[in-house]
C-alpha cells in the first residue's frame, strides 16, 4: 500500500513511458484486442496506433480494489482476482481493461455485478498534451473533485488515453447457476425473485442466473419453479453480434411482440434494456443541448482532435 498522498503527479516509469509514446502531436489511438475496433466509427487513416501498458499492479482483497494497467486483458485480470475469490463488473469477451472501459458496455449479468461505469474508482490517462492526468481516488468511496472517471467510461479514448485504473472488486458468490424455461415471462421472473444476476429472453425462452449462498439459490430456484418449467442449464445462449440499448420496459414488450426492434431474432436482457440482435441499432438521436456540451468537452480536452480521430462516443457497433 502506497503511503504517499493518493494521487499526486505520478513518477511511475511505465506511465511516463506511455505518455512519451502518446507524445504531444499527431493523431494517435490505443488498440486493445480490437474486439470493438469499429465501435463509434472508422479510425482516421495515418493514425498512429499504440498499446497501453499491461500488468496487474496491486490487488488488495480486503480493500476490494485492484490497480491494473489498461492494456491487461480482462481474462488475465479476472484469473488473478478469482484466485482471491473476487471479480469486477467488467465484461470478459476477449478484450482489455482499457478497451472495456473506453467502450463502456455492460456485462449481460450487470444486474448482479454492477455497471461498468460504477466500477472505476481512479483513472490515470494521458491527455492530448501528453500529460498524465489522475482523477478519482484509490478508496471505494470518494467525492473529491469533479468525477472525470465517470466521463472516461464510454468515451472511446476520445478525451484521454487510459494507462492505469483502480477498479472496485466484488466477492464471487459461493454459488452461480443458470436456469432456463420456454414460455416463461421475464416480468414474472423479475417480480418473483429478489435479485437475479441476469434475466434474458429471446421471446420464447427465458434464462435466469441466480447467485449467492447455496440455500438462497435453492430457495430462489424453487420460486422460479412456481412460475415456469425452469431447468438448470450450462449458461446463457449465444449472443447475436449487434448491441441495442433499449429501456427495460421496451424489453418487456419486445418479449411480448418480438417486433419492436425490427429484427426477428434477438436475445434481450430484462431489467437492463440491452438487446443483442443480428441487425444493427439505427443511429440514436442525441439531445441538441447534450451535443453542444459533448462538442465543448472534446474541444476542451482535445483541442486539435488528435485522440482517436474518426471515432465518436455513442456510435453503435
Amino acid at each position, binding site marked *: *500500500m502506497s*503511503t*504517499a*498522498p*493518493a*494521487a*499526486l*503527479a505520478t513518477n511511475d516509469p511505465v506511465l511516463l513511458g506511455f505518455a512519451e509514446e502518446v507524445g504531444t502531436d499527431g493523431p494517435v489511438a490505443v488498440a486493445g484486442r480490437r474486439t470493438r475496433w469499429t465501435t463509434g466509427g472508422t479510425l482516421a487513416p495515418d493514425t498512429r496506433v499504440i498499446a497501453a501498458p499491461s500488468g496487474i499492479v496491486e490487488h*488488495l*482483497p*480486503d*480493500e476490494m480494489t485492484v490497480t491494473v494497467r489498461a492494456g491487461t486483458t480482462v481474462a488475465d485480470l479476472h484469473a488473478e482476482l478469482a484466485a482471491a475469490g473476487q471479480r469486477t463488473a467488467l465484461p470478459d469477451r476477449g478484450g482489455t481493461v482499457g478497451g472495456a472501459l473506453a467502450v*463502456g*458496455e455492460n456485462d449481460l449479468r450487470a444486474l448482479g455485478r*454492477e455497471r461498468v*461505469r*460504477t466500477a472505476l474508482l481512479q483513472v490515470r490517462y494521458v*491527455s492530448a498534451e501528453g500529460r498524465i*492526468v*489522475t482523477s478519482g*481516488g484509490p*478508496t*471505494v*468511496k*470518494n*467525492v*473529491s*473533485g*469533479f*468525477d472525470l472517471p*465517470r*466521463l472516461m467510461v*464510454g*468515451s472511446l479514448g476520445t478525451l*484521454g488515453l487510459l494507462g492505469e485504473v483502480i477498479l472496485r472488486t466484488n*466477492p464471487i458468490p459461493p454459488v452461480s447457476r443458470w436456469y432456463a424455461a420456454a414460455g416463461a415471462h421475464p*416480468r414474472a421472473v423479475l417480480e418473483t425473485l*429478489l*435479485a437475479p444476476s441476469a434475466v434474458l429472453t429471446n421471446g420464447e425462452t427465458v434464462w435466469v442466473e441466480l447467485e*449467492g*449462498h447455496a440455500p438462497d439459490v435453492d*430457495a*430462489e430456484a424453487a420460486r422460479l419453479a412456481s412460475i415456469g418449467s425452469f431447468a438448470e442449464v450450462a449458461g446463457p445462449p449465444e449472443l447475436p453480434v449487434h*448491441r441495442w440499448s433499449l*429501456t427495460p420496459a421496451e424489453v*418487456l414488450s419486445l418479449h411480448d411482440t418480438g417486433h419492436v426492434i425490427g429484427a426477428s431474432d434477438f436475445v434481450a436482457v430484462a*431489467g*437492463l*434494456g*440491452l438487446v443483442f440482435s443480428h441487425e444493427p441499432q439505427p443511429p440514436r438521436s*442525441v439531445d441538441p443541448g*447534450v*451535443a453542444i*456540451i*459533448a462538442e*465543448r468537452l472534446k474541444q*476542451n*480536452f482535445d483541442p486539435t482532435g488528435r485522440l482517436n480521430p474518426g471515432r465518436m*462516443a455513442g*456510435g453503435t457497433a
Partner: protein
Amino acid sequence: MYRYAKLKNRVTRTLGIDAAEVESDPFVAELVDALSPDRVKQDGAHRALLSHDASVFDGGNSGPVVFPETTEEVAAVTRAAATHGRNVVPRGAGTGLAGGAIPLGVPVVVAVTRMNEIHEIDTDNGIAWVGPGVVNLDLTKHLAPIGYHFAPDPSSQQVCTIGGNVANNSGGPHCLAYGVTNAHIVAMEVVLPSGDVVMLGGLDAEPAGYDLRGAFVGSEGTLGITTKIAVRITKNRPEVRTLLLSFESVTDAANTVSGIIAAGIVPAALEVMDQRITVAVENYVNAGYPRDAAAVLLAEVDGLADGVDLDADRIAEIGRANGATAVKLAGSDTERALLWKGRKTAFGAIAQLAPDYYLHDTVVPRSKLAEVLTKTYEIADRYDLTIMNVFHAGDGNLHPLILFDARDEGVLEKVHAAGGEIITASLDAGGVLSGEHGIGVEKQKFMDRMFSSDDLDHQNRLRQAFDPGCRTNPGKVIPTGHSCADIQSLRSVPKEVWA
C-alpha cells in the same frame, strides 16, 4: 434547530439592506415577472438565512432568493441571470456540510424546495421520476407500500433533498452494499447555465454519447440545476439481521470491519461509534447501546433468510476473533429501529454536549482505519479539543467530530488547524479528501494536496464545458488559480449590484 436560532440573530445583526435599492434592480423585476412576487424574496431575513448551509463556514452574500415550481421557471431565472451577467446558486435543504450552497458573488439563490413532487413510479423501468426538492426519506416512505425504497440514506435523510443528494453524490450507512447516489441516478433533466433544458443519461441500458449524467452527479451545483430526476428504486429485502458488537478498543472494531470484508461478506451496513458518541446517544434517545464499550460496531445484512443467517453468524465469529466483548442480535423490528435511530440521531445527541461541532469527512483504506483513528485522538488532545468518531466503517469513511463553543476566544483557529491535520493524516494513509460531503469551500485549499495542477486543470475543463461563463455556483470545488473565478473577489459585493 439551535443553529437556525443563531442564524436569525446574525441576520438582524449584520444585514441592513435597503429595500428600495433591491426593488430598483431590473434583474429582480425580471425575476418577479418570471415567477410571482411572493416567490421572489429580497428581504434581509431570507437572504441572510440562505447565505449559510449546515457547515461551520461564514455565510456568503446572497442576492435575491427565488422559489421556482417548474422547470420553465428555473430556466427563466437562469436566462435572466445570464442576460444580466449574474451568478446562480442552486439550493436544496441547506444541510450540506462543505459550504456548497453558500452564495458567493451575490448570486440569485434558486431554492428548489417547492419542486417536491413525486411525478411517477415506473416499476417496469425500475425507476421513479422525482422533483429535486423531494425530501430523501419522503420518497422511501412513498415507495414502502409497493415494497421498494431509495437506497442512498444519508443521516440527514429526513430533511435533505434528492437534488442535494445528486449534487453531492451523497452516501449513507446502506451505501456500502448498494452504492452511493451515482449508482442510483438514471437520468436527469437539467437547466444548463445558458438556460437551455437538456436530458442527461436516459432510461435505456447504455445511453449514447459521453456519460454527462455521471459527470453531473457530485458536481456540487456547479454545472447547472437539476429539475427532474429519474432515480433507481430498490426492492426491499425480505430479511434483515442487525448485530451490535461491543469492543474494548476502537482498533478491535476497525480490525473486525477489515476481517468481514476480507471474508468476502459485503454487509448492507457497517457503522462504528466510539464510546463518547454512544454515551451521548444513550443519554439522548436510549437506543440500547452499551455505555461501557470503547467502541460499538453496528452491522447489518439483508437478503434471503438462510443467507443472512449465515452471514450474521460469520460476522459474530469474526467479531469474537477480534476481541468483541459482546455480540447482540436485534431481536425485533423495534429493537433494530431503535439501534438505527441511535446511529442516525448521533448528531442531534452532540448538540446536547456543546453548542457547535465540526463534522469532518475523509476516507482511508480500511486497513488504515485504526491507525488514522488513533491519530485523530492524538491530534485533538494536542489542540485540547474534544473529538468523537462515528463513521461508515465499511467503506473506510471517517467522520471525526470536533466539539467546541464558538464563543471561546481563538477556538475556531484551533478547530481548523486540527481539522487540517486530520485531512493530512488521511491523505498520508493513502486516503482521499472527502467520502460524501464534497469539497465546496471547505476543502478547496486541500485539493492540491491530492491532485496535481494538470489534474485540476482537467477538472476545470469539464466544468467549463457546461458553464463557460462560470456563473453557476462560482468559487467552489476547484481552488483559486485553477478555477473560473477568484474566491476573494466573490466574497466582496460588486459595487454595481448591492450597496
